């Protein structure tokens, strides 16, 4: 390659450096830290032995022995290692055990080196990675969750503690090694029910519920005379869709779900559903 082109690359690495490996950061899919919205699983099969357990009001991944899985976000480790996948050796390895990939498996992902695109088609782009991939880690081939999170269990821990969860650097006193660790929380893949275009789903109180396009929760219930509940308006010309039918009883046509009236909550949370209303779920 000619010198000036090479140097040209170098200078624009300025920009690219900033971008390198960060693309996925944009997707909620990269977000495991406790203070960020948890991305739903993509439905791809779990690694052998991995399962989901309830932990408090959330669900977390555990290994075969029921030990809670932790994610270590590789993007936060550049200061310590140019290849963050190799971060957890020596001291770290004392406390954290990598979730090993089955013997004989080959790495199919790697941390994007520098700024050049991952041209090498043996490795996939972490941004587009499925939930579970295998990387060359400090403790050998190990699992990676959603492209970025090296998967570990707490060494020596009994079944399923989740200490240190969410201590991801917001806590001023968090130990430098703790701050990047987060339990891998599980949110099931969103269902794809047959519903009118104005209806979507949202994850509310540990399960999916129907919502409108703005994410407001849909609920049903007995609406007393001149109550302030807002029905979900339906098209007059619609002949309905599966369990969703159009009621022309009132002044304005409205949707019914399994024959029940449908109302729109004030906002996203279950808290916005008035008393007497039951959240509608697929």
């Amino acid at each position, binding site marked *: 390659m000619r010198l000036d082109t090479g*140097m040209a690359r170098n200078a624009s690495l300025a920009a690219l450096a900033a971008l390198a490996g960060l693309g996925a950061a944009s997707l909620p899919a990269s977000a495991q830290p406790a203070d960020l919205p948890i991305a739903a699983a993509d439905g791809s099969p779990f690694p052998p032995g991995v399962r989901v357990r309830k932990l408090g009001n959330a669900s977390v991944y555990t290994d075969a022995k029921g030990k809670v899985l932790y994610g270590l976000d590789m993007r936060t480790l550049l200061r310590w290692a140019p290849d963050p996948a190799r971060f957890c050796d020596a001291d770290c390895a004392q406390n954290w055990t990598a979730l090993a990939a089955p013997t004989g498996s080959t790495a199919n992902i790697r941390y994007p080196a520098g700024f050049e695109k991952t041209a090498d088609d043996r490795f996939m782009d972490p941004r587009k990675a499925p939930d579970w991939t295998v990387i060359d880690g400090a403790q050998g081939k190990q699992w990676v969750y959603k492209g970025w999170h090296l998967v570990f269990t707490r060494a020596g821990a009994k079944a399923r503690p989740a200490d240190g969860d969410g201590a991801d650097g917001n806590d001023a006193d968090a130990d430098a090694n703790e701050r990047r660790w987060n339990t891998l929380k599980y949110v099931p893949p969103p269902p794809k029910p047959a519903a009118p275009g104005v209806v979507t789903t949202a994850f509310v109180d540990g399960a999916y519920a129907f919502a409108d396009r703005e994410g407001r929760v849909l609920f049903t219930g007995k609406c007393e005379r001149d109550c302030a509940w807002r029905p979900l308006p339906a098209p007059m010309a619609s002949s309905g869709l599966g369990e969703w039918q159009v009621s022309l009883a009132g002044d304005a046509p409205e949707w019914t779900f399994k024959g029940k009236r449908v109302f729109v909550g004030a906002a996203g949370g279950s808290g916005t559903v008035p008393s007497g209303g039951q959240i509608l779920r697929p």
Partner: protein
Amino acid sequence: MAFDISRRLALKGMMNGAAITVGVPLLDIFLDGNGVAMAATGAPVPVRFGTWFWGLGVNPSRWFPDNPGPGYDLKPELEVIKDHAHKINILGNFNVMLDGAPNLPHTSGGPAIRTGRALTAEGGLPGESFDVTIGDRIGTRTRFRSLETSASGDPRNSLSGRGGGNLNPSEGSAAGLYKRLFGTGFKDPNSADFTPDPEVMARRSVLSAVTDQRKALEGAVGAADRQKLDQYFTSVRQLENQLDVELTRPQPLQACLVPQPVADRAINAEIENVVANHALMTDLLVMALACDQTRVFNMMFNNGASSLTRIGSTITHHQLTHEEALDNRLGYQPEATYFLNRIFEAWTYFVAALDKVQEGDRTLLDNTLVFAHSETEFAKFHTIDNIPMMTAGSAGGRIKTGIYVDGLGTPISRVGLTLQQVMGVPIDKWGAKSMETGKSIGELVA
């Protein structure tokens, strides 16, 4: 009191009205879904749209005119466009609102302009870029829906796409562009045979059905309403004519001359080389338009974090904008500014090349709308308010030119909205969150 306001008079005030028929022209140009403008001759003249991108902004105080409106004053860095200024608009003081999303350096500005949305994902676009939307309107029946080119040779340098991670890759080699355009697969439009668009034929028959209602309907109404119906059906007739034009074989494209092949040449970001490459690509693009091979194009002169270099030097344009300290007494960075001057020379070449080609009583430039923009205002600080933008050409008389528009800090999405509406995209609102707007730039719409 000199003016007695009795109840009687009040009532009288409520009742001065008789049936009147009012016709208000909305747009003085007729265009249909395929963006066919009717030239005076009534023959269809394709109207084209394209973008011209340059990286790293300008020195605002040396670029933006002082006075909004027609006949704007030219600052040092725009002096070079002098001869074409009457066909060029300058757009300033439009803001990118990120709604809390980060200002990704050299990355947030371009996509915000092209999609009216704040970039929240690295790489790619937060939505469909308007050049693609416009292509869906006017580019569907040409051999290429659109052409993307990158004078600095980087195929990844693109701001065009349907949204998400994938961008329409740019052609970085002039030789490659020639092969794509005029190599195998090229059909001389003047010899190619013509097949009417079934969609248009279908629409034509729908309008006929509507027209057939005329006699009966008019027979049944009073005079005042018949007036309205007359105008309504005149309008339908007008629309039918436009479709008929589309259903008949187009006039030969007199300006279409197949150019000479282009030899392979080095591709790198050295400025002289980029300028030469840009000139070659421009000439090919001009013929691609004249021969109606495409009606939509995207030309990237350099990239956002510009890797342009000077002969014998390895310090890039981008590097200079940051490393060359700003002397606030001087008000700009001399070294970095060298590249700006070269960029606007290239822009002038591009505009002139389009303006050289005659199409009937207009030039190719007149029948084209070129939108030029950068990705920052002042690169040193990555400012994305007041990003420099221009348009050239009048899209077959649909927009006014020679004007400096001061956006007064309104959302930059107004530009994209206006361009799309002018090119016949049926939208009245565009953009998201703080950049959602329904207010197009009235000063420009002819």
